[in-house]
Protein backbone atom coordinates (compact mmCIF):
# COMPACT_ATOMS: atom_id res chain seq x y z
CA UNK A 1 0.00 0.00 0.00
CA UNK A 2 3.10 2.22 0.11
CA UNK A 3 4.57 2.92 -3.32
CA UNK A 4 7.91 4.60 -3.95
CA UNK A 5 8.82 5.93 -7.39
CA UNK A 6 11.93 7.54 -8.84
CA UNK A 7 11.06 11.07 -10.03
CA UNK A 8 7.59 12.58 -10.35
CA UNK A 9 4.41 10.57 -9.79
CA UNK A 10 2.08 9.61 -12.62
CA UNK A 11 -0.85 10.98 -10.68
CA UNK A 12 -3.72 10.06 -13.01
CA UNK A 13 -2.52 6.47 -13.39
CA UNK A 14 -2.06 5.96 -9.66
CA UNK A 15 -5.40 7.62 -8.90
CA UNK A 16 -7.26 5.43 -11.37
CA UNK A 17 -5.69 2.23 -10.07
CA UNK A 18 -6.44 3.12 -6.46
CA UNK A 19 -9.99 4.15 -7.31
CA UNK A 20 -10.78 0.87 -9.07
CA UNK A 21 -9.28 -1.05 -6.19
CA UNK A 22 -11.58 0.69 -3.71
CA UNK A 23 -14.68 0.58 -5.89
CA UNK A 24 -14.67 -3.20 -6.01
CA UNK A 25 -14.39 -3.35 -2.23
CA UNK A 26 -17.54 -1.35 -1.57
CA UNK A 27 -15.98 1.71 0.04
CA UNK A 28 -18.34 4.66 -0.05
CA UNK A 29 -15.75 7.39 0.54
CA UNK A 30 -12.41 7.81 -1.20
CA UNK A 31 -10.26 10.86 -0.48
CA UNK A 32 -6.95 11.64 -2.13
CA UNK A 33 -4.36 14.24 -1.29
CA UNK A 34 -1.93 15.25 -4.05
CA UNK A 35 1.14 17.35 -3.27
CA UNK A 36 2.53 19.24 -6.24
CA UNK A 37 5.84 21.11 -6.46
CA UNK A 38 5.17 24.85 -6.61
CA UNK A 39 7.25 27.20 -8.70
CA UNK A 40 8.72 29.48 -6.03
CA UNK A 41 12.06 30.88 -4.91
CA UNK A 42 13.49 30.16 -8.32
CA UNK A 43 13.65 26.38 -7.84
CA UNK A 44 13.72 23.99 -10.79
CA UNK A 45 12.63 21.01 -8.78
CA UNK A 46 12.42 19.54 -5.32
CA UNK A 47 14.45 16.46 -4.57
CA UNK A 48 13.85 13.78 -1.95
CA UNK A 49 15.76 11.16 0.02
CA UNK A 50 13.88 8.71 2.15
CA UNK A 51 14.73 5.95 4.56
CA UNK A 52 12.56 3.11 3.41
CA UNK A 53 12.68 0.68 6.38
CA UNK A 54 11.52 3.31 8.85
CA UNK A 55 9.05 4.80 6.37
CA UNK A 56 7.42 1.41 5.89
CA UNK A 57 7.22 0.89 9.65
CA UNK A 58 5.67 4.31 10.13
CA UNK A 59 3.18 3.59 7.34
CA UNK A 60 2.25 0.17 8.71
CA UNK A 61 1.47 1.63 12.13
CA UNK A 62 -0.89 4.07 10.40
CA UNK A 63 -2.42 1.27 8.37
CA UNK A 64 -3.26 -0.55 11.61
CA UNK A 65 -4.86 2.57 13.08
CA UNK A 66 -6.92 2.97 9.91
CA UNK A 67 -8.00 -0.66 9.96
CA UNK A 68 -9.31 -0.29 13.51
CA UNK A 69 -11.66 2.34 12.07
CA UNK A 70 -12.67 0.22 9.07
CA UNK A 71 -10.54 2.24 6.66
CA UNK A 72 -7.56 1.66 4.40
CA UNK A 73 -4.68 4.01 3.58
CA UNK A 74 -2.54 4.22 0.48
CA UNK A 75 0.44 6.39 -0.24
CA UNK A 76 2.90 7.09 -3.03
CA UNK A 77 6.09 9.16 -2.76
CA UNK A 78 8.93 10.15 -5.03
CA UNK A 79 12.67 9.80 -4.51
CA UNK A 80 15.13 11.98 -6.42
CA UNK A 81 14.20 15.04 -8.44
CA UNK A 82 10.60 16.17 -9.00
CA UNK A 83 10.26 19.18 -11.35
CA UNK A 84 7.99 22.14 -10.56
CA UNK A 85 4.30 21.61 -11.43
CA UNK A 86 4.62 17.84 -11.07
CA UNK A 87 3.72 15.81 -7.99
CA UNK A 88 5.85 14.08 -5.38
CA UNK A 89 3.27 12.86 -2.88
CA UNK A 90 -0.13 11.16 -2.94
CA UNK A 91 -2.10 9.87 0.01
CA UNK A 92 -5.51 8.22 0.03
CA UNK A 93 -8.11 6.98 2.46
CA UNK A 94 -10.90 4.55 1.67
CA UNK A 95 -13.69 4.03 4.14
CA UNK A 96 -17.29 2.88 4.17
CA UNK A 97 -18.53 6.34 5.22
CA UNK A 98 -17.28 9.90 4.82
CA UNK A 99 -16.69 10.85 8.45
CA UNK A 100 -13.77 8.49 9.13
CA UNK A 101 -12.23 9.29 5.75
CA UNK A 102 -12.29 13.05 6.40
CA UNK A 103 -10.73 12.62 9.84
CA UNK A 104 -8.08 10.16 8.71
CA UNK A 105 -6.81 12.08 5.70
CA UNK A 106 -6.13 15.08 7.90
CA UNK A 107 -4.46 13.13 10.71
CA UNK A 108 -2.44 11.04 8.29
CA UNK A 109 -1.14 13.90 6.15
CA UNK A 110 -0.24 16.01 9.19
CA UNK A 111 1.61 13.15 10.84
CA UNK A 112 3.32 12.39 7.54
CA UNK A 113 4.70 15.92 7.48
CA UNK A 114 5.99 15.63 11.04
CA UNK A 115 7.24 12.06 11.17
CA UNK A 116 7.86 10.37 7.83
CA UNK A 117 11.64 9.88 7.41
CA UNK A 118 11.95 11.88 4.19
CA UNK A 119 14.39 14.69 3.43
CA UNK A 120 13.64 17.50 1.04
CA UNK A 121 16.03 19.57 -1.06
CA UNK A 122 15.52 22.58 -3.29
CA UNK A 123 17.13 22.15 -6.66
CA UNK A 124 18.63 25.36 -8.06
CA UNK A 125 20.93 25.37 -11.07
CA UNK A 126 21.29 21.64 -10.68
CA UNK A 127 22.43 21.91 -7.06
CA UNK A 128 20.62 20.15 -4.21
CA UNK A 129 20.13 22.38 -1.14
CA UNK A 130 18.75 20.77 2.05
CA UNK A 131 15.45 22.46 3.04
CA UNK A 132 16.50 22.75 6.69
CA UNK A 133 14.20 25.71 7.46
CA UNK A 134 11.08 23.81 6.39
CA UNK A 135 12.09 20.57 8.13
CA UNK A 136 10.89 19.26 11.47
CA UNK A 137 12.86 17.41 14.13
CA UNK A 138 11.76 13.87 14.89
CA UNK A 139 10.91 12.73 18.41
CA UNK A 140 14.01 12.47 20.59
CA UNK A 141 16.15 14.70 18.41
CA UNK A 142 19.36 15.88 20.06
CA UNK A 143 19.74 12.66 22.07
CA UNK A 144 23.40 12.26 21.13
CA UNK A 145 24.30 15.90 21.84
CA UNK A 146 25.71 15.05 25.28
CA UNK A 147 28.01 18.05 25.21
CA UNK A 148 25.19 20.59 24.74
Amino acid sequence: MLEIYPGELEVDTIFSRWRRWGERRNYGAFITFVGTVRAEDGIEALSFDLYEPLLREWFERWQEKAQERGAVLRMAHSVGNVPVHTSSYMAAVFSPKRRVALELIEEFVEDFKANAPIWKYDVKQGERIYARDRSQRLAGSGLLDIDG
Partner: protein
Amino acid sequence: MIKYLKKVGEAMVKVEFLGPIGKEPMEVEARTLRDVAKVLQKDEELKKWLKECAVAVNDRLVQDLDTELKDGDRVSLLPPVCGG
Protein backbone atom coordinates in the same frame (compact mmCIF):
# COMPACT_ATOMS: atom_id res chain seq x y z
CA MET B 1 44.78 -3.37 13.33
CA ILE B 2 44.14 -2.45 16.94
CA LYS B 3 40.94 -0.56 16.13
CA TYR B 4 39.20 -3.81 15.19
CA LEU B 5 39.93 -5.40 18.54
CA LYS B 6 36.95 -4.87 20.81
CA LYS B 7 37.33 -4.15 24.52
CA VAL B 8 35.66 -6.65 26.84
CA GLY B 9 31.91 -6.01 27.06
CA GLU B 10 31.86 -3.68 24.10
CA ALA B 11 30.02 -4.28 20.86
CA MET B 12 30.98 -3.29 17.35
CA VAL B 13 28.07 -1.30 15.89
CA LYS B 14 27.56 0.41 12.58
CA VAL B 15 26.57 4.09 12.60
CA GLU B 16 24.88 5.45 9.50
CA PHE B 17 24.07 9.04 8.58
CA LEU B 18 20.82 9.55 6.73
CA GLY B 19 19.58 12.18 4.30
CA PRO B 20 21.55 15.41 4.04
CA ILE B 21 24.35 14.51 6.47
CA GLY B 22 26.19 12.96 3.55
CA LYS B 23 28.78 11.02 5.52
CA GLU B 24 29.89 7.42 5.00
CA PRO B 25 28.84 4.88 7.66
CA MET B 26 31.35 4.16 10.40
CA GLU B 27 32.05 1.31 12.81
CA VAL B 28 32.09 2.20 16.50
CA GLU B 29 32.84 0.26 19.69
CA ALA B 30 30.15 0.91 22.25
CA ARG B 31 28.26 -0.60 25.17
CA THR B 32 25.43 1.94 24.99
CA LEU B 33 24.32 4.87 22.87
CA ARG B 34 26.17 7.13 25.27
CA ASP B 35 29.42 5.58 24.09
CA VAL B 36 28.39 6.26 20.48
CA ALA B 37 27.62 9.87 21.40
CA LYS B 38 31.10 10.29 22.92
CA VAL B 39 32.75 9.11 19.74
CA LEU B 40 30.60 11.26 17.44
CA GLN B 41 31.07 14.39 19.58
CA LYS B 42 34.74 14.33 18.64
CA ASP B 43 33.91 14.84 14.98
CA GLU B 44 33.62 18.59 14.40
CA GLU B 45 31.66 18.09 11.20
CA LEU B 46 29.07 15.93 13.00
CA LYS B 47 28.66 18.07 16.12
CA LYS B 48 26.17 20.47 14.49
CA TRP B 49 24.03 17.53 13.31
CA LEU B 50 23.88 15.85 16.74
CA LYS B 51 21.74 18.69 18.15
CA GLU B 52 18.98 18.12 15.64
CA CYS B 53 19.18 14.42 14.78
CA ALA B 54 16.88 11.69 16.06
CA VAL B 55 18.35 8.24 16.57
CA ALA B 56 17.18 4.80 15.51
CA VAL B 57 18.66 1.47 16.57
CA ASN B 58 17.91 -1.27 14.06
CA ASP B 59 15.22 0.93 12.49
CA ARG B 60 13.42 1.79 15.72
CA LEU B 61 13.54 5.32 17.09
CA VAL B 62 15.02 5.40 20.59
CA GLN B 63 15.04 8.13 23.20
CA ASP B 64 17.32 6.72 25.91
CA LEU B 65 21.09 7.25 25.95
CA ASP B 66 21.44 4.10 28.06
CA THR B 67 20.02 1.91 25.30
CA GLU B 68 22.32 -1.11 25.25
CA LEU B 69 23.98 -2.19 22.05
CA LYS B 70 25.14 -5.56 20.80
CA ASP B 71 27.41 -6.70 18.04
CA GLY B 72 26.06 -5.86 14.60
CA ASP B 73 23.50 -3.30 15.77
CA ARG B 74 22.79 -0.48 13.35
CA VAL B 75 22.54 3.06 14.74
CA SER B 76 20.98 5.61 12.36
CA LEU B 77 21.05 9.39 12.68
CA LEU B 78 17.95 11.09 11.23
CA PRO B 79 18.07 14.83 10.57
CA PRO B 80 14.88 16.98 10.53
CA VAL B 81 12.37 15.70 7.97
CA CYS B 82 10.09 17.25 5.38
CA GLY B 83 8.19 14.91 3.11
CA GLY B 84 5.55 15.69 0.53
